[in-house]
Each structure stands twice: as structure tokens, then as C-alpha cells.
């Protein structure tokens, strides 16, 4: 995982190669490590060629949805009648995920280079890098790197001597989770309240300032220079399970394990191996109980499912969950799954933008039911009510925040129903919960 430890033998270190290497942060250091070659090469190609390379590499969105990146780029209008925009989603706020932060902290130029290539490919005049408000250190490093890139002619009116103008700005968020949702992010850039927009229109038709826009995750964009440098076939070959999932993926592993941190493995890597080998296994004397493999918004897995889950888009779906953003949260046998569910639901209740009725009211209600169960005052019918609310919170709103809250509830009750029932039956001591804390 690189910083602060040496990478594990089973890791495939590509994006994280220079994590911990402070010199890589500077322009000179980055160029010394082979930086900006990919951008130079890209600027000599036609934009459509760049898109074709990324398409055939099989690169898919690392922010959670897993949409093929090259295909997304190709949705941008071919005939330019309006300004185009690229947005880089660096609002990494999914609980359990902290990979983009490390990319920005250690290899800011990798992101700038990826952005510049993408910006050229979709013929955008401007890139906005939307950085999460709490990320003060990544912001500082990114801003320094951006200034450096301008200073060295990578960006600006004659990007790398190509005669093309490439501009890039950093926009700092104000700390709302929902601003990581792509259309809310665009509203936020525009200075509006960060509310998700109804679709259609999709961003490629009408995004930031109503102009054609492509939005990609930090990790996705950071992978692009490697694909340009080493070729799409090489990237496509990085696949252990299903050929539709290629390349490497950073997993932010947190929770009850020996060595939390970011680990970069090839797509299809077994989750059990990641936890037991790379992360050093569970804490002393503890056993694995559950795992959320892709950030808090994806369904939770029990021990058996965790140990047989393969970490790529298809492997996770097979287990009834999703690869998501790669935020792996591991729980051992000491974890109280009812409390964990409540804690996550509380997060969603706090972060709901308040537009859609089901989400605004449903998340809060879900929290109150869970708090009541934890306080030993729950009733059997509360579980059915939770599931019914979750059903009504799924697939009926503008964005998927509500669905995410519901997924947590549904998947936890499905796999750990006995824990809920123990609180309800009174066979488990009521938990002390600070009520109404956001």
C-alpha cells in the first residue's frame, strides 16, 4: 500500500507507486518519474483516438457506478457548438473511502495529467477539480501542483507546446456529502445549493452552466496516463476474474483489521485475501463477522460472502453487493450490527439534501426506529416497517442517497436479523445511544 508501509507482494502497484515519495509531488520530480509523457503523446493524437484507446482499455468509473469511461467520453457532442467542461469529482466523501485523498496528496500531477488528457479528448475548454471541503492538505498540494503545471507550460494557452489552450481550476466544496453526486456537484460549482438534478438532461447534453460536461472520479482520471503510456492491451490484461473489469483498483480498507490503509490490487482480487493477507487479518483473538466492500452505500456481506467475494464489478454483484468506490469496511465479532446500521442511517439522514420526500423523511424515520430498537423499546413489527420504508426509499428519488440508506438497512436485516431480534426480545442489553446526534 505504499505509504506508510512498503507495498505487499500481492499488490499491483501502479497508481500508488509513488505514495510516500514526496519528490513526486513537484513538477520536476513528476517529470523525472515519466510524468507528462502521456499528455504530450495524447496532444499529438486526434481526440477521438484518445477516446478509442480508453474505450478499448476497459477502464470503468472508479467513483462507484462503474460506467465505461471511454463510452462516457464518447457521449460528448462531436460537433462543438458550445463550450465543453470536464469535472473531476474529488469530493471523496463516501464513508469508508480514502483513496482519492492519497492520490491527490502524493501524486497531484498524475491527476492533473489525467484531467488534461480527458479534457483534450472531450474537447473541453475548462476542467473543474471539485475537492471536498475537509481535504485541506490535498487542496494545498493540488493547488501548488496546478500552479506548477501552469508555470511549466503544461496548462495555459499553449499546453505543452501543442498550441492548444487547456485551463484547469480547483473548486473547493463546503463539506456536503451530496455534492459528490455528479449533478449536485455541478450545481455546487455553479454556486447553487448542492441539490441533485433530475435527469434527463444528462450531463453530456447539459451539465455545468448548461453546457456539455463529462464528470469523472479522481482514480479514473489518474489511471488514464498509464493507459496512454502502456497501451490499452496492457490495461485490459490486468484482470483476474471477469474481462469486463480490467486494470487495478485502490481499496481503502478500514475497520477491525491489523493494517488499515490503501491497497492497490488487480481487478478480481479475492476480498478474503485482501483482508487476511494484505491487511494482516483481524485484530488479535477476533474473527471476521461482516464486510462492506465498496463504501457505506453498498450492501453488507457476511463472513462467508466476504471470503468468497472477488473484487471486481461482476464479482461483487454476484455476492449481492457492489464494488462501489472501493471503501472496504471490516467488522469483527465484537461489532454490534444494529448499532452500525443506525450509525450509517444517521449519516444519510444528516446528509439528505431534503429535496425528495422519501429521502428527507424516510432517512430520519429509519434512524428513529433503529434508535428505539437499540434502546430496547423496539417491537417485532418495527423490522417489517424498516423493510417497508426501505422498499419505498428505493428507486423512487432523484439520486441514490435514499437507496443507499435503504441498502444498508435491507442488507443488514437480511444477514443479521437475529441481532435486531435480540434487542427486541430483550435478550440483549439496551445500548447507550446519544439520541438525535447527527
Amino acid at each position: 500500500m505504499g505509504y506508510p508501509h512498503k507495498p505487499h507482494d500481492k499488490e499491483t502497484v501502479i497508481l500508488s507507486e509513488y505514495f510516500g515519495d514526496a519528490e513526486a509531488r513537484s513538477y520536476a520530480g513528476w517529470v523525472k518519474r515519466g510524468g507528462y509523457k502521456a499528455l504530450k503523446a495524447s496532444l499529438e493524437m486526434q481526440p477521438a483516438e484518445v477516446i478509442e484507446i480508453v474505450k478499448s482499455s476497459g477502464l470503468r468509473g472508479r467513483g462507484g457506478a462503474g460506467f465505461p469511461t471511454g463510452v462516457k467520453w464518447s457521449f460528448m457532442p462531436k460537433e462543438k457548438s458550445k463550450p465543453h467542461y470536464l469535472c473531476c469529482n474529488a469530493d471523496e466523501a463516501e464513508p469508508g473511502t480514502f483513496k482519492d485523498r492519497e492520490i491527490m496528496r502524493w501524486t497531484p500531477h498524475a491527476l492533473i495529467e489525467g484531467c488534461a488528457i480527458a479534457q483534450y479528448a472531450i474537447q473541453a475548454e475548462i476542467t473543474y477539480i471539485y475537492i471536498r471541503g475537509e481535504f485541506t492538505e490535498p487542496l494545498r498540494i493540488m493547488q501548488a501542483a496546478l500552479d506548477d503545471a501552469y508555470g511549466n507550460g503544461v496548462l495555459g494557452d499553449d499546453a505543452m507546446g501543442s498550441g492548444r489552450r487547456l485551463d484547469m481550476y480547483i473548486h473547493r466544496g463546503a463539506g456536503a456529502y451530496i455534492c459528490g453526486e455528479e449533478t449536485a456537484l455541478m450545481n455546487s460549482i455553479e454556486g447553487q445549493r448542492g441539490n441533485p438534478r433530475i435527469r434527463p438532461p444528462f450531463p453530456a447534453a447539459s451539465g455545468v452552466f448548461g453546457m456539455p460536461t463529462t464528470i469523472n472520479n479522481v482514480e479514473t482520471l489518474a489511471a488514464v496516463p498509464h493507459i496512454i503510456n502502456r497501451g490499452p492491451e496492457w490495461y485490459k490484461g490486468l484482470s483476474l476474474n471477469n474481462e469486463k473489469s480490467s486494470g487495478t483498483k485502490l481499496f481503502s480498507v478500514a475497520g477491525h483489521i491489523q493494517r488499515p490503509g490503501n491497497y492497490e490490487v488487480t481487478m478480481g482480487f479475492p476480498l478474503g485475501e485482501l483482508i487476511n493477507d494484505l491487511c494482516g487479518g483481524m485484530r488479535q483473538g477476533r474473527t471476521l463477522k461482516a464486510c462492506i466492500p465498496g463504501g457505506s452505500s453498498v450492501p453488507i456481506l457476511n463472513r462467508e460472502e466476504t471470503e468468497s467475494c472477488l473484487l471486481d464489478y461482476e464479482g461483487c454483484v454476484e455476492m449481492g453487493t457492489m464494488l462501489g468506490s472501493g471503501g472496504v469496511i471490516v467488522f469483527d465479532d465484537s461489532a454490534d450490527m444494529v448499532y452500525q446500521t443506525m450509525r450509517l442511517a444517521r449519516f444519510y439522514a444528516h446528509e439528505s439534501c431534503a429535496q425528495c420526500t422519501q429521502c428527507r423523511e424516510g432517512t430520519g424515520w429509519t434512524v428513529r426506529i433503529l434508535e428505539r430498537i437499540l434502546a430496547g423499546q423496539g417491537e417485532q413489527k418495527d423490522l417489517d416497517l424498516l423493510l417497508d420504508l426501505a422498499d419505498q426509499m428505493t428507486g423512487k428519488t432523484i439520486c441514490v442517497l435514499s437507496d443507499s440508506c435503504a441498502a444498508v438497512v435491507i442488507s443488514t436485516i437480511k444477514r443479521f436479523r437475529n441481532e435486531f431480534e435480540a434487542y427486541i426480545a430483550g435478550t440483549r442489553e439496551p445500548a447507550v445511544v446519544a439520541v438525535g446526534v447527527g
Partner: protein
Amino acid sequence: MADQKLVTLSIEGVEVSVPKGTMILEAAKQAGVLIPHYCYHPGLPIAGVCRMCLIEIEGTPKLQIGCATEVAQGQVVKVFGDEALKARESVLEFLLIHHPLDCPICDQAGECELQNYVFQEGRSNTRYAEYAKRFSPVEDFGADVLYVPNRCILCTRCVRFMEHVADEPVLNVSERGDRAFIGIHPDATLDHEWAGNVVDLCPVGSLISKDFLHKARAWELDRTPSVCTGCSQGCNINLDTRSDIVVRIRPRPNPEVNRHFICDTGRMHYRWMNRGDRIEAPLILRGEELQATDWDHALSEVARLVSGSSGRAVVLISPNASNEAMFLAKRLVAQFTATLAFRVERVDGEIPLSGVPGLALRAERAANVAGATALGYRDDFAAAVRAIEGASLVIVVADDLEGVSREALQKAVNTVYLGTVLPDTARGATLVLPVANTAEEDGTLVNRDGRVQRYLQAKSAPGMARPAWWILGEVLKELGRGESLFSADEAFALMAEAEGQFRGLSYANLGMHGSTMSEARV
């Protein structure tokens, strides 16, 4: 519309053809199906946030919102399928968990879309019984508007109106999640001329009118289509009456005039309709004193004054009088050399509603200047006053004679005053005839764009007061120049026959949205 491509779809088994780009919710209206909704309003940009209009579309796995989903050829839409009904029942349950259910003391009760849809599609009980409801105190938003946050369902109609239609974005959604509420800029109040519309737009009892507060329950009100007389815009309104008293004015949608809105000046322009100091009987001058008489006598006296004289006549009429009254007054003095005049209050500047082109509180503060002009009346009060001296007959209709002395009026041989109240000057008239005000009669007005619009009687006239067109019609009958008029419709028909600019128009073809004089000529 004609060159637009039509799309045919089926909604609840009813086939409709609508222009491409129409949203399903609007198409459903044409199929006679009301898809329940809150945040959608035809006069506002689409928000798609309440999620109440969820419907099923065959072949689409997820429910879609009717307000923001475009129609497609061959689409099969189910509004009342089990899944959609369950989803909407759930939205209603969510909306009610913090709602105080204080319908018995809420002004909106009876015309509340939350109440209506809960009765129609909601659960009969709540599953949120064990928890305290969120509470926030009532807030004064300034001008006529109170905000009751506990009843708010955050549909954001008010926010969108102020931002996109009034172009004064002083409202927002503050906070997040279930703590959210409608916020107002700390230095602002809702004193925008058009801000009162947020009360009408609010589908629940969250934004309420201070003026209407606790005046009536919705089901006690009678609603009568009318036209605002506040200015020359001619906004379509409803007069809401309770026990023959006008208690509220609300906009009546007319896409050609005011869409869904009226200004606050118009909204508050109703107290005069309820005035108590009215003339209730015909009065005739006997010696120095006006004495009450009956209509038969009064009408024959007027007829005698008209038939027995010739020379010059003056008609001074209010620019808020109906076209029918203006026309018949003009016809009554046909044998004279007549001065036909009105005067109108004008203020500086208009107050437009920026999101609706062509809609403003106009500087000209009267409703029928265009009608008066079309019928030959001139905006020349001074000329009318000059003409009084030595005139054989002066007829005044609803002008308050402010600025004219009794002595000046008496320089005419005879004066007949038709009015709702008796100004001092009019005490010098030969005859005073009590007339109905705009709320008490049927009639038509012509707005500044030449649109002829009907208004209907909303309350009874006091005592023996009658519509001016009826009185003038009876006088003409006495003179053998016509038949009794039983309705304003008949008076209008006479006018349409005689006056070129009204040719081809009738109450039937005017409908309740009116049509323009120029359209009629074509």
C-alpha cells in the same frame, strides 16, 4: 401548435395525442386523469422533488415522475396501478409524519392538496405513532404572508416563484434532511408586489394570508369568476364570498392575460365591494331634498327628462363601468349633441411580474378604459365639466364627482346620477339611481390589449340597487326605443349589433377567458 409533431399514448386506457415534449402529467389532464402532485405547477419551472406523481410506464422497470417524464409514442401509462398507488401512499405517509394534522384550525382545510390526496390515496392510520413531531414556530414573512413550517411539505413552489417568476430570490430551502425549512433572507420581507401569489401556490396551509386568516372555511365560500378592476391589465380573478360578503380575491388562470397570478394590489382590492353606506333606493329631488321613490316612478321620470329635451347632453362615466352600461348610456343620449367622457387615475410606473411577459400592475388604475374608448368616450374630464353648463341633460355613472361643485352641476337643466354611494355634489342631481357594483352584476370589460372579458355577479346588490345596464335598458323601453333587458347577455348582444368593434362577439363565444376585439373583426 399545428406544425408540432403529435405523440399518441394511452393513459389509464384513454388514448390521447399531445405535442411532442409534453410531460405525462399534462397529457394525463387531457385524458381526464389527474395525477396527484405537489411540487409541479404549470406556472413554475419543474422541480421533480415531491415524488408524488410517480406513475407506471409499461416496459420501464422503475416508477417515473409524471411531471418530468416526456410522452413517447405508444407509451402505456398506468396512474392507478398497484405499485404507483403504493408509492404515492408511502409519499403521503412520509409527508404526514411531521405534519401537525391541525386541519380543524387551518385556513387551507377544504382546499388542501395534502388533505385531498390523503383522503384519496393515503393510509387511514400512521405508523409514526411513537415519535415526537418536529416543531417550529410560525414565522411572519412580512406583507400578507405567514409561514407555518410545521405544515410545510417543502414542495419549493414558493421558492421557485420568488426566484424564477418574481425574480426576487429571497426564499430558499434552509438546512438539510428532515430539518429543512423554507428560509427567508434575514433582511427581506415578502413585500414584492407579486409575492402574495406564494399563498395561492402553497398546496398546503404552510403559507397563509394574514388578511384571510380565520375569516372563513373553504367550504363556506362561493366562488365567482370575475375580472380585477385594479388596473387596465384585466387579470382574471375569482371573488370568494361568504354570506354575500367578498372575503378574498384569488387569481383565476388565464394563459392570455395573467397566467396563474395576480398582484397584491389587486388581491386586496375588494373592501369597496362590501361598503355599507350604499344608496339603496331611487331618489328624486323634491324642492331642496332628495326623496326616496320606487323604480317605476324613477324610470318614467328619467324617460320624461330625456324625451322632453334636446340640445346638448353630457355622459360622465366611470372607466370601471361595464361596456353594456357605457353602450346604453351612449344610446340614451343619441338624440343630443353629446359629450361622452371619463377620467382615470394614473400613477407613475408599472410593476411587472418579470417571469410573465406582458403582465404588470399597470399605471392606468381602471379596468375598462379600452372599452370606454372603443365606445366613443374620451379621457377628458375637463371637457365634460365645461359642457355641463347649459346642457339639457347630464348623466353621471359611478363617477364620484370629486372636483365638481353642486352649483356647477346644477348649471345643467337636469342631472341623473347613477351611483353606488352618494357624494355630496350628487345631492344636487334631479334623480339619483342606485346601481350595483362590479361584484353585484354581470358585465364585460375590455383590457388594455383589447380583450373583452366577462365578469359574473358574486353577491346581491343592496336594497333596490340594480345593474346600470338594466336601468338604462328600462329607460330606453319607457322611451319606446327597446325592450326590457333580462340579462347582461342581451345588453351585450345589442352592443355587438351596433358597435363595429364588438361585432361577432357574444357571451357564449367570449367564454370565461374572453377574446380580443380585433379577433372578432377578422
